[in-house]
């Protein structure tokens, strides 16, 4: 299915892009990470437990079921304030 994947801060720099459209068989965050790593090993940082996933503006767990058209954002730990 087609998804929009976004990367923020250190992850954006690591992946070399802020946003990309992907067509993937992945149906969960965990599967999407595995698929991205297989495509490009630089994505291995997404596996880090501190990486947060925001789907359509909501923080979700990696088990969250993805559906076509979702915007999936990978975020390093927040450091505002």
């Amino acid at each position, binding site marked *: 299915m087609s998804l929009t994947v976004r990367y923020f*801060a*250190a992850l954006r720099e690591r992946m070399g892009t802020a946003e990309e459209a992907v067509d993937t068989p992945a149906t969960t965050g965990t599967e999407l990470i595995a698929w991205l790593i297989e495509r490009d090993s630089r994505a291995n940082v997404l596996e880090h437990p501190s990486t947060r996933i925001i789907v359509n503006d909501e*923080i979700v767990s990696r088990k969250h079921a993805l559906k076509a058209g979702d915007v999936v*954002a990978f*975020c390093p*730990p*927040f*450091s*505002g*304030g």
Partner: protein
Amino acid sequence: MGIRVQVQSERFDAGQLLNAMSGTESDCGAVASFSGQVRGGKGLIALELEHYPGVTEKALLRIAQHAAERWDLRQATIIHRVGRMEIGEEIVFVGATAPHRRAALDAVSFMIDVLKTQAPFWKKEYDANGEHWVEARGEDDQAAARWLDEKEEMSA
């Protein structure tokens, strides 16, 4: 109950924000606030703040609403800057007004502690050696955990 949250690149005047919150409700005995600014030292030249537009504002609104549900407040304000900031410049303002001081003080502590771990902002530091992303600090997690139930996360 007045809630105001804002993400902006422009500088702000914490004193002005505090004055604007003061004296507006006759039943308010307390006005409390926190302002965070860029700390110099260790060769730091400047900070750059990145955020997730749209999602960050929602997260801040949820944090302020959470505070308003938990304490008897009249106003809750969160202003956070993004972009590049020099040493000494303001980063964030959090304020609350309430009939009583404990509510206002606790609400301000809650909002700034929770903001640090629950709102999508990222800091990059620039120094003589270049630039690097600031890593989240364990003590910030502990400060936020003080206010949140075990494993509870406020979604963005």
